[in-house]
């Protein structure tokens, strides 16, 4: 059986007009790359949710990083795309232009060597990402503490995915009939990690892998339980996702972090949707050492509609800047910055 046959089977069982939302930047990207939207029957509408960690970083968090770097002479260590995400006063690239050091790493562990080799400098490591990267940062901080590193501080922008999905369902701006569960996040939190959400909303939910046949297989499952009105929480990515998730990674994560509120672009402040450092790691916590001074002023209207894109309310092509003044080369908003962003996927692979 090949892709075409899977598509045929979906067509055979799919009758209703349905909206299904994917929550993972990799799914957004792969669905476009393989042209899965075009393969599916017209009554199945795929929406992209807030599953790109860079895209959901709020303006005020970017402003805070810029404030810190300027006022306290800190060098910034972070991950790829974050440097291009605009805040109210520019992006981290603005810091670079002002002569500040902004180092991009692949693994957060690199920050330990950087700090050790430059004992006279002070570094701020920015942790960003969902449940998939938080354990890595947790492990890095445990090592930094063991090695008694004093010139490395930490800012957690880590976010948890189930609360954001709950926020979108609560907003009720769009009808969502089923959810494509994020395969990587679920690898960490397990099928179990979604039980709370599922029990509360009884929304059809299928965790999927990332190959085209894995996505279509998952969509088949999802369409089937929607059509039969038998909502279920299904793991269709058993290759990587266990019932309990990755217990070791979760243990590390909660050794270092606890839940706290977080600010999401497009969704606002969501209680218990972020990870903040617990008391044992306070010595690293930049929010405790140099709390944010300038409270965020409302973003000057720059016409970016990324917030609505992240909630699945509009398509990137509904944004007047899309493809005109906003492109991956000169992004006007975070949804175009990251390759996981919905606007950049639309731009690279063409919208519907």
């Amino acid at each position, binding site marked *: *059986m090949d892709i075409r046959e899977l598509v045929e*089977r979906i067509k055979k069982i799919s009758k209703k007009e349905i909206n299904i939302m994917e929550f993972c930047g990799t799914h957004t990207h792969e669905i476009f790359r393989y042209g899965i939207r075009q393969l599916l029957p017209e009554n199945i509408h795929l929406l992209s949710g807030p599953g790109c960690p860079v895209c959901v970083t709020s303006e005020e968090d970017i402003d805070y990083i810029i404030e810190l770097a300027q006022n306290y002479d800190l060098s910034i260590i972070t991950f790829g795309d974050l440097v291009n995400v605009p805040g109210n006063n520019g992006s981290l690239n603005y810091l670079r232009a002002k002569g500040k050091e902004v180092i991009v790493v692949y693994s957060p562990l690199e920050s330990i060597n950087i700090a050790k080799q430059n004992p006279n400098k002070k570094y701020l490591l920015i942790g960003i990402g969902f449940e998939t*990267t938080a*354990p*890595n940062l947790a492990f890095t901080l445990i090592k930094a503490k063991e090695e008694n590193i004093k010139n490395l501080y930490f800012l957690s922008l880590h976010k948890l995915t189930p609360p954001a999905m709950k926020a979108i369902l609560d907003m009720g701006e769009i009808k969502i009939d089923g959810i494509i569960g994020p395969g990587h996040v679920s690898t960490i939190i397990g099928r179990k990690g979604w039980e709370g959400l599922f029990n509360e909303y009884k929304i059809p939910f299928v965790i999927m892998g990332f*190959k085209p046949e894995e996505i279509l297989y998952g969509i088949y499952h999802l369409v089937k339980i929607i059509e039969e009105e038998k909502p279920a929480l299904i793991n269709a990515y058993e290759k990587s996702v266990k019932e309990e998730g990755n217990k*070791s990674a979760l243990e590390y994560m909660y050794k270092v972090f606890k839940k706290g509120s977080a600010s999401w672009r497009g969704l606002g402040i969501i209680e218990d949707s972020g990870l903040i450092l617990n008391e044992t790691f306070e010595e690293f916590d930049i929010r405790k050492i140099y709390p944010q001074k300038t409270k965020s002023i409302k973003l000057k209207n720059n016409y970016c509609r990324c917030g609505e894109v992240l909630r699945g309310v509009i398509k990137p092509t509904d944004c007047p800047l899309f493809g005109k003044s906003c492109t991956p080369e000169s992004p006007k908003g975070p949804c175009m910055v990251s390759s996981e962003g919905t606007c950049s996927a639309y731009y690279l692979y063409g919208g519907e």
Partner: protein
Amino acid sequence: MCLGVPLKVVEIRENNTALVDMGGPTLEISTIFTPEVKVGDYVLVHAGFSISILSEEEASDIFSALEEIEK
């Protein structure tokens, strides 16, 4: 960030690290969250850490599973 990639382990090193094949160059990753990893395993790598060992079953299993749910 959320872009995890499946990579093949080519060498197990000390202190919970391993080398993975990047189609030519190799990359050192931390295996602290998947301590049971062996040479030849495919692991899902996120920002320098393996977060799971992918089980062997191939795509064909998807289809037999599909037959199951169709019953």
